[in-house]
């Protein structure tokens, strides 16, 4: 469980548009790494390159390498499907499968991968729902549709769905931006628990959130609109928020930009 990610010279394109340029960083295992930066600077794009979801977008392509414990995700012969089983993802908007019950949603990853034993399934579902702090709220209605839950519950359902396949890394793309403060708190607490088992990367626009949940923080910025986004710096969260080494980071964090 929980692998280290080493990114080297990564550049991603949408068609001919260069979205992010030459990003290199290391994400430590069993820790939370937060990505912050202004809108359009490529945080989400970079996150999606870490489990090869970027190439799902038409025209999306990647140069450079992403090492997951020394194995290049973009090496020849690497199956993106296997990569995505190892590196799970939670999206900005909760997106439970509308045709499936709560139980089926959590079991979806295992069932559709065909990699499960029938008698284990309900144990795994319960474990995942407990892991996502949702079990007590839904244990009496596992057969009800997942779309009937509240937004915060749906997002925790999506987290349960993502951890049910036992990934090594969990990517979260602004998981709380559509949620109220109480649900946000629930998810933040959950992130704190999950980092014992997974390597977690979270994109957030909320700097207090980054300061609260992350161990390390990466600041992304872009030189101008239309220019590719770049990694400005990555460091211990405490250092980034108290004494960053780059002026641009301090300007962004303290609210002075441009």
């Amino acid at each position: 469980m929980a692998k280290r990610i080493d990114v080297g010279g990564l550049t991603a394109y949408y068609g001919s548009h260069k979205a992010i340029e030459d990003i290199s960083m290391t994400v430590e295992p069993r820790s939370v790494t937060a990505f912050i930066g202004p809108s359009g600077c490529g945080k989400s794009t970079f996150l999606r390159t870490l489990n090869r979801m970027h190439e799902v977008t038409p025209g999306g392509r990647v140069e450079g390498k992403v090492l997951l414990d020394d194995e290049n995700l973009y090496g020849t012969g690497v199956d993106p499907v296997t990569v995505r089983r190892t590196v799970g993802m939670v999206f900005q908007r909760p997106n439970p499968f509308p045709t499936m019950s709560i139980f089926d949603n959590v079991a979806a990853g295992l069932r559709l991968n065909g990699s499960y034993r029938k008698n284990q399934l309900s144990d795994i579902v319960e474990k995942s729902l407990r892991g996502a702090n949702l079990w007590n709220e839904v244990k009496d209605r596992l057969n009800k549709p997942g779309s009937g839950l509240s937004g915060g519950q749906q997002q925790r359902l999506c987290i349960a769905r993502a951890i049910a396949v036992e990934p090594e890394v969990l990517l979260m793309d602004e998981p709380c931006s559509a949620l109220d403060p109480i649900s946000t708190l629930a998810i933040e607490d959950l992130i704190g628990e999950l980092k014992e088992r997974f390597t977690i990367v979270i994109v957030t626009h909320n700097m207090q959130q980054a300061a609260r949940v992350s161990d390390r923080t990466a600041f992304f910025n872009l030189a101008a609109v239309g220019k590719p986004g770049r990694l400005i710096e990555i460091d211990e969260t405490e250092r980034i928020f108290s004494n960053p080494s780059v002026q641009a980071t301090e300007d962004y964090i303290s609210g002075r930009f441009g």
Partner: protein
Amino acid sequence: MSHAPTTVQDRPTPVPTGVKSSLSSRSLPRWAPIGFAAVAIALGVGTSLAAGWHSRIQWGLISALLFVIISYVATTVVENQRQAKDRLATSIVWVCFLVAVVPLASLLWTTVSRGSERLDGYFLTHSMAGVLGSEASGGVYHALIGTLEQVGIATVISAPLGLLTAVYLVEYGKGALARAVTFFVDVMTGIPSIVAGLFILSIMLIASIEPSGLMGALALTILMIPVVVRSTEEMLKLVPNELREASLALGIPKWRTILKVVLPTAIGGITTGVMLAIARIAGETAPIILLVFGSQLINTNPFEGAQSSLPFYIYEQYKIGEAASYDRAWAAALVLIAFVMILNLVARGIARWKAPKSGR
């Protein structure tokens, strides 16, 4: 120290006469549109009677026109210009709705009232074997069998083909091939049924194949595929991309994502589309005349020998021109409409049953 006493105004603010309070204004009662309609119909009928017109269509159109004018003028006078425009648009929508519905209701009524005279168990279970056109017996069984088999075969061929084509276009297709497929599907949508029939007929002549239900079904397939492709494509496009991404991000292969996430989400709409396509081809006559040949006898084998079908039967009975055969034609028309109606109800049932649930 000059202390200016604050005078409390106990008089109400004077209301300028003639100006109404700012937010509410004179308005027509809720039943006004019904009143307008009653007045318009009375006026329309009166005018028509006075002028000695016989056509009921004329009466209706004059009443409709009067209704629109009366609502507009009355609302302008009582309320204001903006309300009048709103009322005008509403009235026109209602009139258009009635113009569309009246012929439909009339058609349905005529078919039901004239068709129910002959429609009974005997009619549904007997063929026309040995029945003279003027005799008031015989039935529709052979035609019903023919329609069910031909439409069934056409559906079995075109539903999977159309579904797969739509999946290709939405999930995989890009570049020249997808554009070409889209273009030809659009072209195929416009093929007249007689052309589809002639196409199959030319093949039959070249390969010297005898007429059979299968040949008719093949022509129906040509007509059905583009309808299925189009409707399925639209339904698949409605499935949010987030669901596909959520599934892919779980490490589920693309084909399973399509099979287990995309298609189930869209299945209600897809079923409705297929049913509508069936309804469209069930009423085709031309390919049947050309390719199935028509028959008075029960032939349950669609792969060999002539068959009949409901639309062909209606045409045939109408051509005989006897009172008894007219009755049979109406009854067969009722059977055909009922067939399509039942299919639609089934489709709606499936759509509701399979639709994404949102109950708590």
